[in-house]
């Protein structure tokens, strides 16, 4: 089954309606809201947003690409982030990342074909005492080991397939 998030134009419209039409200063907020709901910024959403705010689609895209935090390709339902900060690094974070890459069959920064997982790395989230650290859908999972991570991913995968 493909998990490509179907583009829900109604949802996009309702997100846009929460912002004043023609108010270009809301541009970045609109981008955040769209991504929060859609998990990425598809072309159509940017086009509709540009129309709503009265800026050009090109400008909308230009601003969005200025920020690292916005994504332009569909992202996984679950986001697994491995902390690669110094403290996590010396406690084995690279092995966590390798394990996840192998289990999910995707490189760091990528998204699985079934759109269930996106795998990311980050340079220190400031929770060094918990390291090595994996962040799964925003929840910090400390003292992680490759085996524990592997188990967790398997469980999530099973659950997701149902």
């Amino acid at each position: 089954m493909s998990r490509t998030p179907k583009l829900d134009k109604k949802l996009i419209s309702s997100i846009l309606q929460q912002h004043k039409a023609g108010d270009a200063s809301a541009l970045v907020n609109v981008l955040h809201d769209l991504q929060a709901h859609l998990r990425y910024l598809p072309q159509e959403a940017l086009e509709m947003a540009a129309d709503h705010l009265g800026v050009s689609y090109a400008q909308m895209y230009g601003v969005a690409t200025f920020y690292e935090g916005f994504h332009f390709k569909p992202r996984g339902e679950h986001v697994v982030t491995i902390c690669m900060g110094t403290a996590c690094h010396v406690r084995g974070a690279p092995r966590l990342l390798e394990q996840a890459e192998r289990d999910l069959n995707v490189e760091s920064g990528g998204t699985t074909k079934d759109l269930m997982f996106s795998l990311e790395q980050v340079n220190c989230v400031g929770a060094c005492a918990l390291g090595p650290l994996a962040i799964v859908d925003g929840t910090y999972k400390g003292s992680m080991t490759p085996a524990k991570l592997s188990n967790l991913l398997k469980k999530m995968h099973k659950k997701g397939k149902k």
Partner: protein
Amino acid sequence: MTVQFTIDGLEVKAKEGEHLLDVARRHGIDIPSLCHHEAVEPIGACRVCLVEVRSGQKTTITTSCNFLVEDGIEVHTDTAEVRKHRAMNLELLLARAPKSDVVRKLASASGVTRTRFEPLAYEPLPNCILCELCVRTCDMLGHHALTTVGRGDKKRIGLPFNKPSDNCVGCASCLSVCPTQCISVKDTPTQRAIWGQKHDFILCKVCGAPVITKKHRDFAISEKGLPEDYYDTCEKCKQSAASKRFASVVW
């Protein structure tokens, strides 16, 4: 309101709100520039148009293209400081556009013939110096096809999602203002290829020469309310038709 100041010792007058570079050029004082064009707002991107501005005790090195003139300032366009900073900026630009004749000429006029910096070229636009003249011009013409993409050393000029744009009418104005002429435009007698799209030309009903792209004609006619047949003949044939009409009246 009028302001009065000096450029290289010359007393000049200007209107409040004018930019220094424009005023200098009007008075025959040349300041080199790459990202300035009369038709669009200056953004101070290339940093080549540097001048020294003295105001009271304060001396600053600043770009002149976007500097608003002030009463009583003393502007110097060719001091050692100006030359030093301009040379550095041109050395940086040379790393961006090693093959651009315009950049090379300006650089060598500043005594810069090679660069110590790593080249930072972006493949499809090999000598782009990110001056955004193309973007500003396309916007000003009402097309809004182009944008900067990304930032920092990954910044480049392009189209949203790197896909052919509905907004691009193939007018090639972006190329005509591009200081390094790095935008690829390929014309055949019937078609123009630009920004990943092919545009059919309207051909002159008299001589068959390309007049304008179809998409550009449609845009111009609907935006400017021109008559439907406005672009049916090329400028040359229009002129010769007009002079014939004129001759028939005179003789």
